[in-house]
């Protein structure tokens, strides 16, 4: 089983999906000859040609809007938004159109669309190349929101997303692209959209995360293990639909819950997870449901000192784990 980084796993998933189904095409800024600014689509232009790996004009609304139209004309488009920070012009097309078309047509039309979105910080991207946007979109029924954190999951979830008859926002944390490596089987496989994954089983506290923060949580859990605290780390993998069963089953075992995300806290996705736990596992709780998130400032600054102050770290997560374990 070859080892590869998360970016390579996504590229391989794209390649295999395009080889398997002529309806799959890629549409986004610089995805063609350049292979994308992160090189995710590198080599695909040469392999599949300019009619299947298409450089779009610099216009996010029509990147998504045209892909919606193509999806309604029997294609399986993969839109790439170059950075999550630039997705706002496409918000109308994603939320009012892609997410509502099946519902508003009473099931008549479908939008099988994948929107790949590199997101997240810690890469010196400053305010407009570091943002996390999942909370805006996870709020919207009709959309699926996927947040893989390992190469295996990324490739398997990507294939599921391409085959899904619904619009899927596929969020790729930029810092995990080359940082996170893992084994990816050579045979064809899928990771279903929906189920969370227990990445590290534990007894004392339950920690929920996704993307880069999942890895920081695993690192912190390792630290806590040395201190005699057994931490269960659950990778949510999919934010919508959300695997509430796995979340609640874990909390009912440990009695303690911590949710970690890089997005700022107020109105963030962690609030939804916390509410579900409070509502459905209240009598099992031995401590407050805790959350760690980015600070409530407009976005992540450029200067290293400020960026570091923004990002939750394995150390800050470990500190929260200790506080929670002490209850």
């Amino acid at each position, binding site marked *: 089983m070859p080892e590869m980084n998360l970016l390579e796993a996504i590229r391989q998933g794209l390649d295999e999906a395009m080889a398997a189904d002529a309806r799959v095409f890629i549409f986004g800024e610089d995805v063609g000859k350049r292979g994308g600014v992160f090189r995710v689509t590198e080599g695909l232009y040469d392999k599949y040609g300019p009619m299947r790996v298409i450089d779009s004009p610099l216009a996010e*609304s*029509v990147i998504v809007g045209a892909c919606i*139209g193509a999806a309604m004309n029997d294609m399986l488009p993969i839109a790439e938004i170059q950075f999550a920070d630039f997705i706002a012009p496409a918000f109308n097309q994603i939320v009012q159109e892609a997410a509502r078309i099946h519902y*508003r047509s009473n099931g*008549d039309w479908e939008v099988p669309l994948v929107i790949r979105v590199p997101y997240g910080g810690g890469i010196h991207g400053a305010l407009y190349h570091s943002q996390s946007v999942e909370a805006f979109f996870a709020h919207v029924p009709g959309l699926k929101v996927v947040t893989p954190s390992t190469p295996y999951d990324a490739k398997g979830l990507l294939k599921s997303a391409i085959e899904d008859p619904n619009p899927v926002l596929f969020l790729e944390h930029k810092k995990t692209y080359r940082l996170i490596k893992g084994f990816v089987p050579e045979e064809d496989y899928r990771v279903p959209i929906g189920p969370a994954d227990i990445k590290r089983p534990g007894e004392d506290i339950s920690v929920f995360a996704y993307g880069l923060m999942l890895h920081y949580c695993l690192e912190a859990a390792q630290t806590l293990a040395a201190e005699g605290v057994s931490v269960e780390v659950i990778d949510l993998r999919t934010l919508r639909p959300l695997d509430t069963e796995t979340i609640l089953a874990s909390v009912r075992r440990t009695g303690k819950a911590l949710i970690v995300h890089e997005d700022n806290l107020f109105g963030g996705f962690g609030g939804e997870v916390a509410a579900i736990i409070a509502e459905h596992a209240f009598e099992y709780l031995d401590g407050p449901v805790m959350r760690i998130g980015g600070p409530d400032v407009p976005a992540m600054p450029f200067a290293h000192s400020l960026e570091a102050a923004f990002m939750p770290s394995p150390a800050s997560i470990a500190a929260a784990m200790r506080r929670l374990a002490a209850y």
Partner: protein
Amino acid sequence: MTVSINEVSASPGFGHDLPPHTLRDMLRYMMLARALDERMWVLNRAGKAPFVISCQGHEAAQVGAAFALSRGKDFILPYYRGLATVLVMGMTPTEVMLGLFARATDPSSGGRQMPAHYGCRRLKIVTQSSPVGTQIAHAAGIGLAEKIKGGDAVAWVSFGEGTTSQGDFHEALNLAAVHRLPVIFQCENNEYAISVHQRQQMAVASVADRGPAYGIPGISVDGTDVLAVYEVTRRAVERARRGDGPTLIEARVVRMTAHSSDDNDRTYRPPHEIALVRHQDPIVRFVAQLREHGILSEAEEREMRAEVAAIVNQATEEAERAPMPEPETLYDHVYAPPRQRR
């Protein structure tokens, strides 16, 4: 690329060689749209329909264009004034009325959307929303898919002149032009976006002026002349199917009603203008043309009006009798079910 703006007016040979029965069909659809539309207002004022938005004054622009398209093959993305368009493309009067009454069997949305948000996959009428201009991007994407697949269907999309201020108008025209996509952009310019006049919407005299800026033909046509619209659309369809790319058509029409049943256009439109619009009725005009050329007798016209009135009565009755959506269907179709892997 230099593109000239063509002004298309009355053609030398009347009817563009369309056979008389086709010309009468065109008139019948225009009359049907008008009669249905007028009935909707009556139902609204009688308290039976909460909302109406009209196509009155746009019938020639829509019927002329739709007759140049291929039913069941070409994709149609009509905006909320597209009643005559969807009738020509195969939606029945009863289906239209089911939408007005928000009945469960409304083919557009099963009673979920406001009336006039048309859609029907079988007829390739693409589902529409209320934020204006989003459908223009979809039309470009349908054209893009068609080009990738090597097909020869076209996407025809309509919108008002106010919508040309939206970014999606620009983004979609630009994309379609860059890739020479088979898309026909029909702007139905009735000079008003609810209450705001075209003068406050754009500094150009004609929406068609914008075509050359994208490197595509921009054609302005009298949208109350059904045959003129038919002819420019026919040429645009040919051009699109040949692979020569999109066309922007401005059909200059009149808005013969308020914006919607919730609007009062007397608060912003001068009385003489409202009176004048009545004299620009595209149906009156077409009837006179057909009469003049001996294609429609007085008796035939009378018969046609009676036929249309009977259809509207029947459609209203059938739709009113149809059941409302069951409350428990509220949760249906949030997500499409998984499908078989090909």
